[in-house]
């Protein structure tokens, strides 16, 4: 009787790890997309509004502009 009881307990203990469940949470990609979109949009907007910053500085007009022959 005791043997049967021990065997039952051991069997139950061995069965516990077999029932382990791993739950995987769904990966959220959407917010990353939105953040990237905003950053790209802002970068474009800034480049458009401040395009004058990328232009080379205007050289002062030369005093003698006539061509010498």
């Amino acid at each position, binding site marked *: 009787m005791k043997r049967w009881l021990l065997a039952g307990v051991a069997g139950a203990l061995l069965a516990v790890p077999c029932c382990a469940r791993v739950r995987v949470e769904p990966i959220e990609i959407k917010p990353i997309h939105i953040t990237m979109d905003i950053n790209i949009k*802002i970068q474009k*907007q800034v480049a458009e*509004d*401040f395009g004058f910053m990328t232009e080379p500085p205007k050289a002062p007009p030369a005093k003698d502009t006539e061509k010498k022959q």
Partner: protein
Amino acid sequence: MNTRSGTWVVGVVLAAVAAWPTAAAARSKDEVVASIKARYPALVQLLAAHKVGETHKGLIDAVKDSVRDEKVTSKGKTITIAQFIANENADRTEYFAIAAKANNTTPDVVAKGFARHRFSLLKSGEFWKREDGAWVQKK
């Protein structure tokens, strides 16, 4: 006119009077950008002279406190570098707010984008203020 509607009229008039200076002071994005553009040649000179630098917040700052009282000519007026920095930062902050509203985001996001743009345009040797507050020269 009963007392209730009279109170309403007084309230609306007071609100309009209170809002008037704000409405008059608000500038369009193009006006703010034009103001920054007009100041830009002086900014380029100050950056090249290593007197001011760009910061990670999209603003400018004096590289050394000792230069704050020095004079600079900008938009046809001679002002201190401290005043120049304050004017430029006020314009930039206004731009960040306008652009943020237009793009449904926060001024911080616009400021970071602007800072990236400014960093990319800095020339070798010009100063950049990092997030830890340290000034570094662009290589």
